């Protein structure tokens, strides 16, 4: 197994700064402390106490908020007896008048809601077994990689500032009312950076590595039970030749 070999590798104790490539020995910091690169001061490891459970809690809230924020009315304007309400999906799909603009619409919808929601889902998938001290679920490594790669493309907070600017522009033209989704989205915008701030990618990689080398509690218990069953019935032939 490649993973079993990795644990015996002396290089496993080293860490290379992704910014400046300086190689240093890993000194696991205490929760709340940070390990900085000795050459360029990039934060290498920043573990937090019971971060896993907190991230899962925040990610579940992000998911619920994202689903409700997209379906409920976001803003409503009225002027001279005419009114129009729009949801966040309407805003994202505002460009869908021609083919090229449709592409842009889908992209915007992704940046505003789908990518933050997907990242929350991926975090839960990766961290749930780790928090419960079990072996990671299949594909956890790929899932965490995708979640980290999508990090710069999650733009809920940029959209929030865009909202503020748009509201000031509209208030000259018509009367604006806030829908429930507006307030839900405001919470979402606060929670997404909280989730990012709690996630220490180095700690997640190391615990994924450890739990792949050392099987989780469930596997250990299964192995122990199998041993006991064998001890209790030593003289029973496993397969009797006819």
């Amino acid at each position, binding site marked *: 197994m490649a993973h079993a070999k*990795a644990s015996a590798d002396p290089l496993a104790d080293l860490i290379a700064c992704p910014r*400046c490539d300086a190689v240093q020995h890993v000194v696991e910091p205490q929760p709340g402390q940070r390990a900085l690169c000795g050459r360029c001061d990039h934060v290498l490891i920043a573990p937090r106490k019971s971060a896993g459970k907190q991230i899962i809690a925040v990610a579940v809230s992000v998911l619920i908020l994202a689903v409700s924020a997209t379906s409920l009315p976001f803003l409503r304007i009225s002027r001279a007896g005419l009114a129009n309400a729009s949801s966040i999906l*309407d805003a994202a799909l505002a460009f869908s008048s021609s083919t090229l603009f449709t592409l842009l619409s889908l992209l915007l919808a992704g940046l505003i809601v789908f990518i933050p929601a997907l990242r929350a889902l991926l975090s839960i998938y990766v961290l749930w077994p780790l928090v419960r001290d079990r072996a990671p679920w299949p594909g956890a490594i790929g899932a965490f990689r995708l979640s980290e790669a999508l990090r710069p*493309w999650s733009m809920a907070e940029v959209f929030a500032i865009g909202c503020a600017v748009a509201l000031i522009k509209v208030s000259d033209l018509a009367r604006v009312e806030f829908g429930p989704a507006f307030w839900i989205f405001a919470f979402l915008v606060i929670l997404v950076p909280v989730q990012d701030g709690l996630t220490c990618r180095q700690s997640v990689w190391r615990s994924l590595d450890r739990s792949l080398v050392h099987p989780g509690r469930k596997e250990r218990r299964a192995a122990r039970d199998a041993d006991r069953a064998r001890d209790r019935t030593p003289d029973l032939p496993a397969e009797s030749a006819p």
Partner: protein
Amino acid sequence: MKSAREMGLVACTRCNRVWEPGIAHCGRCGHKLQSRNPLGLQKVWAWWVLGLICYIPANLDPMLITRTLVSRQDNTIIGGALELGRHGSWGIALVILAASVAIPVAKFSVIAALALGVRHGSRMSAERRQHLHEIVEYIGRWSMIDVFVVAILSSLVQLGAVVAIRPGQASLYFALSVIFTMFSAMAFDSRLIWDAEEGEVPDLAPLPAPSPKDPKEEPAG
């Protein structure tokens, strides 16, 4: 302090694990292992040029088309911001000008300066330049503000004949320009700054695989 490359090792840029050269994929996270990407700087320039090409029509074409009962008004990015200013909202005008003009222009010049600095040397210290790169990577996404403003306005302000707002061509070009420059900043490998700092001529050849009998010396932490 030695870099992985100087020690003859290859570092995974995603999970920061260090490996012997000659291994194709990281054993921990599966990321492709490459000491330095020989095409990295070319990628930076390719995305940079694409971004710049899109940035020109983004500023010349109308961003927002407002139609009321009596008039139709096409606003470019700068024109729209200036008009907001004339109506008294100078704060908002400044936010838009910063997000749509100052940040993109600063981004183009910083990325170009970083890429040129790796090739031809720079008077700025490596720490400074790396810091600039981190800032550019961080603020890149904030340029999308104006695209989002256009999206919200054109979905919300649809009051039949009284007033209707439609997005203009420029919004598409502007979004593409932001995305391309984000790719350009991501393609830039800040480790090249430090390679040049150590006096190494930018040499992006892959490392030779180690000979099996040669024991690796333990690095000093």
